[in-house]
């Protein structure tokens, strides 16, 4: 059998007139599609849950295929998706804390009696709230807000 030049599907190798064959290393999305989803399926002795893989594939397809090319195009959303970027997880947590905090502040802001609210709210803050102490809003900043006429 004759050897096929460039065999291996390592990306679009053919530069055909009239078609765009971007020169690039193997496109991971294409690879995953074939290596994870295709090929002979034999159960083997070890059970690997293919459903897990398929779910993962979708993620990965979105995540890493052509990352560099995507970056060049300014597509970098995954860097802002906390679930896809482990070092952003604490940021997500912080966001959540802040959101809860805003919700609480807004609720308390709607309370009818401002001075009572402020009195009741502030002392309770430190011991009861799950907010990290370091991020506790200083009173000086809350007072103007809850004290709005």
């Amino acid at each position, binding site marked *: 059998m004759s*050897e096929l030049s460039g065999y291996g599907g390592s990306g679009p190798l053919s530069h055909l007139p009239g078609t765009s064959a971007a020169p690039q290393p193997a496109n991971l999305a294409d690879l995953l599609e074939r290596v994870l989803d295709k090929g002979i399926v034999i159960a083997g002795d070890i059970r690997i849950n293919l459903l897990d893989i398929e779910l993962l594939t979708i993620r990965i397809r979105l995540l890493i295929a052509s990352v560099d090319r995507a970056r060049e195009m300014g597509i970098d959303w995954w860097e802002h998706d906390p679930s896809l970027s482990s070092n952003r997880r604490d940021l997500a947590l912080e966001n959540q804390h802040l959101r809860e905090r805003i919700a609480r502040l807004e609720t308390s802001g709607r309370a009818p009696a401002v001075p009572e609210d402020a009195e009741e709210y502030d002392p309770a803050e430190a011991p009861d709230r799950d907010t990290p102490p370091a991020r506790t809003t200083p009173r000086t900043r809350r007072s103007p807000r809850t004290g709005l006429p």
Partner: protein
Amino acid sequence: MSAHPPTNTWLYVITEAGRSAPPGLTGVAGEPLHAVSGPGLTALAGAVPRSDFDEGPVRTHLEDAVWLEHAVRAHHHVVSSLARTAPVLPLRFAVLYRDDQRAAAMLMERRDELTAALRRIAGRVEWGVKAYLGPADPPPDVDGGDPRQDPSTRPGTAYLLRRQARHRRQEQAHQQAANDALRVHTALARSAASAVCHPLQQSGATGSAEPMLLNGAYLVEQTLTAAFHEAVVALSTRFPGLRLETTGPWPPYSFTAVSDFGGDPP
């Protein structure tokens, strides 16, 4: 190998009997390859450590994108290297046996089916052809004719109507392109021994700003490769609203699933 850490047998390809792996080629664990022989068939395999390649560890590793990419590329590297010189049936990722004997028993058990599959892909290669919506949308219609756009219409309403019309034109163009992509697939399938459509990839995965409209795979006789490419070129001329992208040649990943056999070609 009793003195060594326990291993599992990872299968890469099934090929004709008597094949051996080229020296220097290594697998997903960096391991050398060896042949597992059955009647009339050989599987090329690697002995991979159970500490990393057993049910639990693999499941854990699969959640690690970096590990997965590395392993997928390694698996593919072996498969594509072997496919260069002989017809091979690529195995799906992570087909693992406890040992070579168990793998050999499988070769024996499924001999007829595997032999038929091997015969079917011999002398053929897989090409991928994707179609994207062309970057150049059809020019906006000279649509001064919209009766609602009379001067008396309030500016806000006119703006919304214009937007609506533009949106409708884009949708029509998209629909037209999708129909064209289907025609491309039908035409290419005629130049191929077999054809399948993979799911369309999201634009985040393709790196292309335009939506994908076709993600086809075609099993093509090696001797007809040039004709297949000519068909692609002709189709890209015929459908200027599409951008066609060819990938390959691939080992016949998309045409070896047992369910593909005796099945209905599209």
